[in-house]
């Protein structure tokens, strides 16, 4: 088993939470893991990414080779396109469609969506809205993670366990919201896959 994942977003959007959940799940089943992240200057509202690698064999490089990522998981639609040079031909692009606009020359949203739809394997969802319906806009990250869940080759309950571990300290309500967010994202992606079939 090998999963090479690019996590993408804007500094401060919290892509590292997604990395932590997948990381905890992977560790529980004894997979090897490497996760390279960006610290420092870019965290001030710039584009940020993390290279997350899972494997049942020891991993050599902290960086994923170009053209070999199995998945891009992005919490911002334009940022999802920035890492296309990394994505393998059969790879999946999972992205939030809610834009984060902090630059004056941000492109038109419909052009971005059209760019995403050109990718053969993609799931695009409005994670903020879905999260709001559940009751917490802050769980948008976990909705995106849920949408990526069918492609991770990790048992779904491992992700649930990881959310329990990560948010356990914040109480049952927070855990419950995040579990619901995970499921909502997951269901969205499953519908999309089945719709294709």
């Amino acid at each position, binding site marked *: 088993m090998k999963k090479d994942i690019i996590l993408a977003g804007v500094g401060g959007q919290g892509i590292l939470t997604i990395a932590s959940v997948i990381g905890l799940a992977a560790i529980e089943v004894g997979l090897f893991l*490497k996760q390279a992240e960006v610290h*420092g200057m*870019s*965290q001030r509202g710039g584009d940020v990414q993390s290279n997350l690698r899972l494997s049942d064999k020891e991993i050599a*490089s902290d960086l994923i080779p170009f053209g070999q990522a199995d998945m891009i998981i992005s919490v911002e639609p334009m940022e999802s396109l920035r890492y296309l040079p990394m994505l393998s031909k059969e790879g999946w692009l999972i992205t939030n469609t809610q834009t984060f606009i902090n*630059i004056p020359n941000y492109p038109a949203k419909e052009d971005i969506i059209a760019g995403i739809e050109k990718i053969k394997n993609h799931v695009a969802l409005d994670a903020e809205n879905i999260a709001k319906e559940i009751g917490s806009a802050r769980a948008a990250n976990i909705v995106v993670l849920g949408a990526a869940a069918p492609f991770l080759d990790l048992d779904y309950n491992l992700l649930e366990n990881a959310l329990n571990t990560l948010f356990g300290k914040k109480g049952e309500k927070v855990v419950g919201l995040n579990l619901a967010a995970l499921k909502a994202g997951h269901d969205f992606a499953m519908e999309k896959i089945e719709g294709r079939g």
Partner: protein
Amino acid sequence: MQKLLLLGAEAIAQAAIDAGITGIFAYPGTPSTEITEYVQNSKQAGEKKIRSAWSANEKTAMEAGLGVSYVGKRAMVCMKHVGLNVAADAFVNSAITGANGGLIVVVADDPSMHSSQNEQDSRFYGKFAMIPILEPTNQQEAYDMVHYGFDLSEKLSIPVLLRITTRLAHSRAGVAQKPERGQNELRLPSDMRQFILLPAIARKRYKGLLANQALFLDDSEKSGFNKYIDGPDKSRGIIVCGIAYNYLMENYPDRNVPFPILKITQYPAPRDMIERLVGACDEILVLEEGAPMIEELLKGFLSIGLTVKGRLDGTVPRDGELNPNIVARALNLKDTYGQDIPDLVAGRPPSMCVGCGHIDVYNALNEALNEYSKGRVFSDIGCYTLGALAPYNAINTCVDMGASITMAKGAADAGFFPAVAVIGDSTFTHSGMTGLLDAANDGSSITVLISDNSTTGMTGGQKSSASGKIEAICKAVGVEEDHIKVLKPLKKFHEENLKIIQEELAYPGLSVIIPRRECIQTLGRRMRI
């Protein structure tokens, strides 16, 4: 024992705690900050009473570490690569004094300049000072090398340089711990003149350092960190340093490389191993994360009799960090690429946060400078350097920690008026206040804005050494009290702030303006707790 999931930086910190350090000394700087932060937040380190607060700069950190070593205890000193320039005086001389208690200097280089002004390779500093260097390839090796490095430092009575780069510092992997070791007892050097670098003593100690090179080399050959891995195809031998090893292995999924490999992770470079590789192979490819140090060593000035490929002949790009694809191309292996980034994707450079006080400072300063010609603002290293970008376009220089005040002073001394310096609070106490002393002593006509957000912002909000002390320092170095102005950078005070800045710009003498408002990030974190 269950493995810990740690960043490379954190693995080094955990190892230092386990190896029995008494103190860690550092100034924040990407990508080294997380080492010291980990110790500061560690319960285990707290119980062991390990000293870990931030130092004013890398030089004071290095000297304090040397003091710990003098009394026989173990210390770690951490910095980013350019920080070693600041600490260089103490660092280079520490090779002459030698160590007593174990002393490891961790320097985190930033090739590709993700968050830096240059990509200097700290191995050159280690070679220059003539001390052993360790360069781990992964998180586990980083952990293990700290233990080994402290033993080596005490065995050979020499500080040891541990060199890492961004990708190791900021990448997480599982790390197995070793048994914990207690701290050393107080034990002064057996030679009470060891640390007195009077010329007569320094000359003697320097001869000792030169003589000890053979011991350092011998350890490089035998410690087991440098590895000769034979391969059947002798048409090429590969020397691979530090994390470049990972990128090489990534290109061989079964990990069987057909060529002989010399993996170098300890310096001085292992001469016997290099001779063996050169003797066995037709040509040598050198893969180094950083500058072509080993490559230059092999190639020599005249490149006689040996084909060496690497960064100098274009086989590998001359600048920037390595990655698996660059290494694939250097080996003529299949390169892979996804698809091009669509043209519509716009750059998203870092920017100052919404609500940041520096923004109000620049809005007022820009307006105040409207009546003068352009090019008057000398700035410094910190979040406020982002004032160089649109829409502010507010600064004209950023060179090194503290250079704002001194460059403005130089320009003023050359007859440029008004000249403005913009510096942050933490940078001011790091390296700005001595420059302010020069300006006061010289009566230089500059206006210094110390934009005080009461933290070290760019590295994530570490405690600033300047907190609560800036006015007193300015007064003490000789700035007239009437020309030390404190203001609150908020939109609603824009007009009065503008007026103060205009007045001080027009004043033909030294003045300091201190716009003071807490960093929006640290404030937010404080409010959430």
